[in-house]
């Protein structure tokens, strides 16, 4: 059951951009460990203090809009967040998250009904999201198999390595 995640929700609004996820002043760093402590600093100073390993970010439309900086999903992973659920994701952020192995799920209903602090369970294979606090469950489209494979292997680098080795 390695593909089931469990954590508390942190809820934010629409258009959370990559500049608030990780401001450019920290983007000289490349590792999740260095970036994590500054994640969402300009939006919610309390976030990094309260977040625990495995917690989940829930947000509105167009999450991750703006810059192509890969430091953004790296910072989220570095903060210990296990996955992001949003109504929709900006294009580059979507690709970047998959590439570095951060699971993301699109579900309008889930994003609407989940509140900060709710206990969630997410099954990455089926895309099912369960709100354990409120006792409701939602579905999101699971990733195509190739993309699941990338996430399972921990990102694009391992995926390509594997592909080059098997050639």
């Amino acid at each position, binding site marked *: 059951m390695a593909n089931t995640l469990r954590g508390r929700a942190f809820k934010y609004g629409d258009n959370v951009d990559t500049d*608030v996820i990780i401001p450019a002043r920290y983007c000289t760093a490349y590792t999740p460990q260095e970036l994590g402590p500054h994640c969402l600093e300009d939006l919610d100073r309390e976030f990094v203090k309260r977040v625990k390993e495995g917690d989940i970010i829930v947000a509105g439309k167009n999450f991750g809009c703006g810059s192509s900086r890969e430091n953004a999903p790296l910072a989220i992973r570095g903060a210990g967040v296990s996955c992001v659920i949003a109504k929709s994701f900006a294009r580059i952020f979507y690709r970047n998250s998959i590439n570095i192995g951060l699971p993301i799920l699109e579900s309008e209903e889930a994003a609407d009904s989940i509140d900060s602090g709710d206990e969630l369970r997410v099954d990455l294979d089926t895309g099912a999201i369960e709100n354990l606090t409120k006792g409701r469950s939602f579905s999101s489209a699971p990733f195509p198999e190739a993309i699941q494979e990338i996430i399972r292997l921990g990102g694009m680098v391992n995926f390509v390595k594997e592909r080059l080795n098997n050639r």
Partner: protein
Amino acid sequence: MKIPHKKELIELQKRYRTDKRIGEALGGVPAYLVAYWRRKKKIGRYNYPKYSEEQIKELWERLGDDAKAGRELGIRSHAFRRWRKRYKLKEKPVQLKLEQLKLELDINFNLLRKSMRYTIAQNLLASRAGKKKVEVGEIVEVEPDLAMSHDNAGLVIKQFRQIGVEKVWNNKKIVIPLDHRAPAESEKTAIAHKSIREFVREQEIRNFYDIREGVCHQVVVEKAHLLPGQLAVGTDSHTTSYGCIGAVSTGIGATEMAVVWATGRIWLLVPETIKITIDGKLPKGVYAKDVILNLAKRLTVEGANYKAIEFYGSTVKEMSISERFTLSNLSMEMGAKFAVVPFDETAQTYLVGRTNKNYEPVFAGEEAEYVQEVELRVERMVPQVACPDNVDNVKNVAEVTRVRIDQVVLGSCTNGRLDDLEIAAKILKGRKVHLDVRMLVIPASRSIYLQAMEKGFLRDFIEAGCVVLNPGCGPCLGAHQGILAPGERCLATTNRNFKGRMGSPEAEVYLGSPATAAASAIRGRITDPREFL
């Protein structure tokens, strides 16, 4: 330690040039020892030419002028002449006549409209994937014509090393200009820049531009690294800008770029396309920036997410490449994947003297299917300002004229070109920047910087009290050169006004045209530029 063979030493010299660098590459061998080995093996000092014959020939054939060609290399005209003589290039090149080209093109236009039912994105991705046609929603694996990275090449290199491939797939297709933190603002950046310079030398990437050259997107277009009908990916969201010359281009992340460097392949989803038609003559004081901000307001910041945009209409037809650049550039702020102004005579004229390569523009068919069609008339438009914290929070300038400002930024890939500087210089000439305002001027490239100097714009700026910075991204992304303190406000010609974008999260950024920027700098509050025109 083992002394390298003569052959090895020559190879090392080719790559690292000086004894000191060779020594470093060998793990800290002092330079005098390398020099001693060299003398023993009868190898001279490094004397490979700085500029190759190929490079000098290409510049000469393209530009046919010592001064212009010299400028591209950053050397004086007589120095270029010496290089040219060294390679025995004496004859003046035969410049292609514009009219001749036009004739050829008219025929091509009709030939290229084969796939009637498809958009530019579909036609281009189909041709790259070696297919007759592709449908929206299909995933294709393609080889890009250009892979651009800037300072974040540092992260790309790190990921590339992890993949474990030794050589990049094609060192001619990779372009790296350093612009985001140029010159380096911290030790960390300096280390990243150094690692990029070393990698570039190791992989023999010719199209590397150190901090002197300017904003990456401007450099790519200006130096024609990408041509109409070609496909580019870049590790910067504003890579969509190359649509201004009829190319198709989009931003990707660093890991994805590392994969492109290693394998030359990338998967892309064939996007839906929005057709935007802009008609009418632009009124006084209204520019491409105002038009695209107005569009952002209509479509919202996610209105074009995952989608391509094609621009049509009489207004676009009349626009210069620089103005089209602004359209394609800011389309990204609506989430666009591609943003293309179809190739035409304006793009063709722009490329004369910049490239001597053949290119094949791609067009949309007459029956192409669009997911959305937007029509906009501009005759009665007024100057627009995007207010904090989103690019679609756009208001007419009259609604925000009470906002006092502390800083004005003129520049960036969005609005740092010669025409932008000219508009602002004309307003500022003979006037003074308000005492409470810091105005920063950042030409988008070295060539623009030089031209602005020759035309006297820089003098106008400096006399008015502006600070002229080196070509690059400046404070746009909040890395350096003009960071805002809490409570401060800035009117910028850049592309983003997100919270904390230009420094403190308690500062505010407003976006407007170069004319609005200049007028606001004079008054100390956001000002309608028509008061000065």
